[in-house]
């Protein structure tokens, strides 16, 4: 038996119920636990709320912070945007239903937690994984795979399904009592809900689709379109943030028009005027639009007609727009708005 009298665990906190329960189970065994949460850039946390005006009024919260506060533990939020690119672009185990590389993502996060654990002299890692909970990433076969490929091996404990898995170091060392762990499995969430009730947890979040935008069909389609148009599977944080704002229309393969839908998005898109061509309507109230790509003169005119279509001048004969280049050079275009039938459905990304 190892003789560490004050073992410490680092717990992967996603903001959902399972990691909250797993952490509580270990806290209740008298272990010091701190939380770790990774920001990949795709996390569902409040971006669109921050952008859209109607959502800005809504009270929003970061679920990982909320969970940590409920549990009374510290939370370390780690920016992994750059490192995550390789996970998303080259997933060894492939994608889930959309562009979600869940298995590689889990391995990556456990590996990051392992490095954090080593740097901070912690002893083991906790996750809220449950065998059979997710069809691809949480299966009986993937549990040892994640432990192995992350390099965490026997230092990875899943308190909610530990009894269905071989003993881990914290159990062998006697830091954690195996009998007080759980044997949850499958997609049925009743055991988790019952356990939450027994702990008196209320108001927790249960996202239906998963913890990130990569599981969202529309979002994944926009991301795939971006890669195809650029002929390169790559992205910057601004790219993936912009995919969450405005309507995206691609009239031609080499350029895309991002048109704001309301005031909050007007402000948000205007913030990118140094990176993209910015169009605004002058003769009529209308949206703010960004042009992404390499449009020529004719393309700019087409983009202007499209933007005019979404302005209050849509029925006017002509609409005047301001066109600002990223270097600040301004010009004007006066164009007839596109007719509804001229806006092809296929343009909508």
């Amino acid at each position, binding site marked *: 038996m190892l003789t560490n009298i004050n073992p410490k665990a680092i717990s992967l906190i996603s903001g959902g119920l399972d990691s909250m329960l797993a952490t509580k189970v270990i806290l209740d065994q008298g272990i010091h636990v701190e939380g770790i949460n990774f920001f990949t850039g795709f996390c569902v*946390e409040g971006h669109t709320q921050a952008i859209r005006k109607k959502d800005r009024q809504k*009270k929003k919260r970061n679920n990982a912070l909320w969970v940590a506060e409920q549990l009374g533990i510290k939370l370390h939020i780690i920016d992994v945007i750059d490192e995550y690119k390789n996970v998303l672009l080259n997933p060894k185990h492939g994608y889930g239903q959309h562009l979600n590389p869940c298995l590689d993502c889990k391995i990556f996060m456990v590996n990051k937690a392992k490095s954090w654990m080593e740097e901070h002299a912690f002893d083991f890692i906790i996750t809220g994984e449950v065998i059979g909970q997710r069809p691809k990433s949480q299966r009986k076969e993937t549990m040892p795979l994640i432990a192995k490929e992350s390099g965490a091996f026997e230092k990875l404990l899943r308190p909610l399904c530990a009894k269905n898995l071989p003993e881990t170091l914290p159990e062998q060392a006697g830091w954690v009592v195996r009998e007080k762990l759980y044997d949850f499995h499958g997609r049925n969430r009743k055991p988790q809900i019952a356990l939450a009730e027994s702990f008196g947890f209320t108001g927790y979040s249960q996202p239906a689709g998963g913890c990130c935008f990569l599981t969202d069909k529309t979002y994944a389609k926009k991301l795939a379109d971006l890669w195809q148009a650029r002929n390169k599977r790559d992205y910057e944080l601004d790219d993936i943030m912009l995919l969450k704002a405005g309507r995206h229309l691609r009239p031609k393969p080499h350029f895309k028009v991002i048109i704001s839908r309301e005031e909050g998005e007007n402000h948000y898109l205007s913030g990118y005027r140094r990176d993209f061509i910015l169009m605004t309507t002058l003769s009529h109230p209308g949206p703010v639009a960004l042009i992404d790509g390499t449009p020529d003169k004719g393309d700019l005119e087409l983009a202007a007609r499209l933007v005019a279509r979404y302005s209050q001048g849509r029925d006017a004969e002509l609409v005047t727009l301001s066109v600002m280049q990223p270097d600040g050079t301004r010009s004007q275009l006066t164009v007839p708005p596109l007719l509804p039938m001229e806006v092809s459905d296929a343009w909508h990304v």
Partner: protein
Amino acid sequence: MTREWTLDARRLLCPMPVIKTQDKIKELAAGDKLVVTCTDPGVLHDIPAWCRINGHQVLARETKGREITITIRI
């Protein structure tokens, strides 16, 4: 002596302002003050929550137009 620091987290969306605040605070000493300027209203909730769980004190929050400033004592 209290030292005062500033952090510009404008245009960043949550949780980036929280991450920047967390990383900046790691470099500061107990008793220092940090003034964070942001534009995502989510910080009004997230930065105080982060401070509460990590034992720092929010001294003031101010909203002027679209800009929000939060003053923290480390």
